[in-house]
């Protein structure tokens, strides 16, 4: 059997299917448990539904981009393993890099060369183990340090009153501070897309204020993402 034949085998499909089913069960348990806890601590059903609806709607567009990545990754490592890697821990960029580094580490020019070679099949186990182990650092780190970090944040907040609330409140701002400038320096199309997204968000907030359609809040991020990405086609033609 060749590398890709093993990587597309029915048994791998079954194993990956079980792995993906496990992810759905784990998420389902967390969702139900947290929803019940939310009600118990006084969060309203509307708040809880807003979190579920807005997150689900927002996730559709980025998930489609993951399916795009799935198509390219599946040509390199087969459909089932690509499916598993993108459902558990992985992101397309990491998976493509890790597959290529594994191939070059094994002495091949790239994954295509490994797949085409007669010895490729004997490296199936190595490729799969390396790809799994390489991405596991984050999972192990959260296993070891996660509770300590979480308790640290909630402890800071409860012990220091108003200052504690401010201190923990400014932490998330670091996300936009670290990522936004790096997008803006990539070129005029990136800048135009960022500005488009800001304008689209403002217009939607204005629409909600004007019409009182609070339910539209659930769609703001998804619509912004879609329009922003679509606008890149226009900006690429004009500025690219």
């Amino acid at each position, binding site marked *: 059997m060749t590398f890709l034949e093993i990587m597309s085998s029915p048994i791998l499909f079954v194993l990956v299917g079980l792995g993906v089913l496990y992810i759905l069960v784990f998420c389902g348990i967390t969702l139900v448990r947290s929803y019940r806890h939310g009600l118990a601590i006084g969060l309203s059903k509307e708040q809880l539904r807003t979190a579920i609806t807005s997150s689900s709607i927002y996730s559709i567009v980025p998930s489609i981009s993951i399916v795009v990545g799935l198509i390219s990754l599946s040509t390199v490592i087969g459909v089932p393993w690509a499916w598993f890697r993108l459902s558990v821990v992985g992101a397309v960029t990491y998976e493509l*890099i890790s597959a290529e580094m594994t191939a070059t580490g094994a002495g091949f020019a790239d994954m295509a060369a490994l797949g085409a070679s007669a010895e490729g099949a004997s490296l199936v186990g190595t490729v799969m183990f390396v790809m799994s182990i390489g991405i596991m650092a984050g999972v192990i780190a959260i296993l070891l340090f996660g509770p300590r970090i979480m308790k640290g944040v909630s402890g800071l907040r409860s012990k220091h009153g108003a200052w504690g609330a401010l201190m923990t409140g400014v932490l998330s701002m670091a*996300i936009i501070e670290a990522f936004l400038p790096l997008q803006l320096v990539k070129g005029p199309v990136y800048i135009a897309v960022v500005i488009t997204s800001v304008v689209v968000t403002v217009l939607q*907030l204005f629409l909600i204020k004007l019409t009182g359609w609070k339910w539209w809040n659930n769609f703001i991020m998804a619509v912004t993402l879609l329009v922003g990405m679509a606008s890149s086609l226009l900006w690429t033609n004009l500025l690219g």
Partner: protein
Amino acid sequence: MDKKYERGIHLIGRIGLIIGIAFMLGIPAVISAVYDVWPSSITQVMTIGGGLLLMFIPTALAEVISYTPVLGSSAYITFLTGNVMNLKLPCVINSHTLTGTTQGTDEGDTIAAISVAASSITTTLIIIVGVLLMVPLRPILTSPMVATATSYLLPSLFGGMVLSFMNESCGEYIAKGKNLVMILPLVLVFVINLVYPLSGKEGFAVLACMALNVLIAWVLYKKNIIKMVPKDAAPGKSE
């Protein structure tokens, strides 16, 4: 936070991760056994994967330290299902904004867990549909237009998230002047990136920005430039 719930959420999270790890290593093990394609030795795996580990371990550690304070207990599912920056963090931040909650509180932590779980379920189901419909979808999803649009996902995302960060809500307080904290870190990241490209090192940049944010917030708070007003005492909402 309710101690019983807190213990439970950490226990379930950790067990969930351990089972996830079992799948990550178990699937290669079963395939290796069935097709007799075991790695020749652990040394072979470490030699081939050495570069990968050296590249990803520091980044992964930086991401865990920087994103966990924002994610709270949802970090367990987040780091198991991946796509932290493009999916899970935006969902959490957006849900916090929409529900008027903040991380570090029981309410904020619960909303984060619900958001990440809902997002992960949606993504997992869409990927399943993608696998089932891969043949008919391939020509559409690999068209040049879709390829261009998907490459601009992150600028669209950050443009959309800017306003989520520009509110003065801090849980049970309104932090008047809080947005001033962002100015210096934004400028610094911009300038540092000109001399030392930060692409691929975003996890470290987030960590540094977090420390800087706390420092700037402390100075502005002590100088009374940032004023913390309890929400029930504030004349109007600022969200």
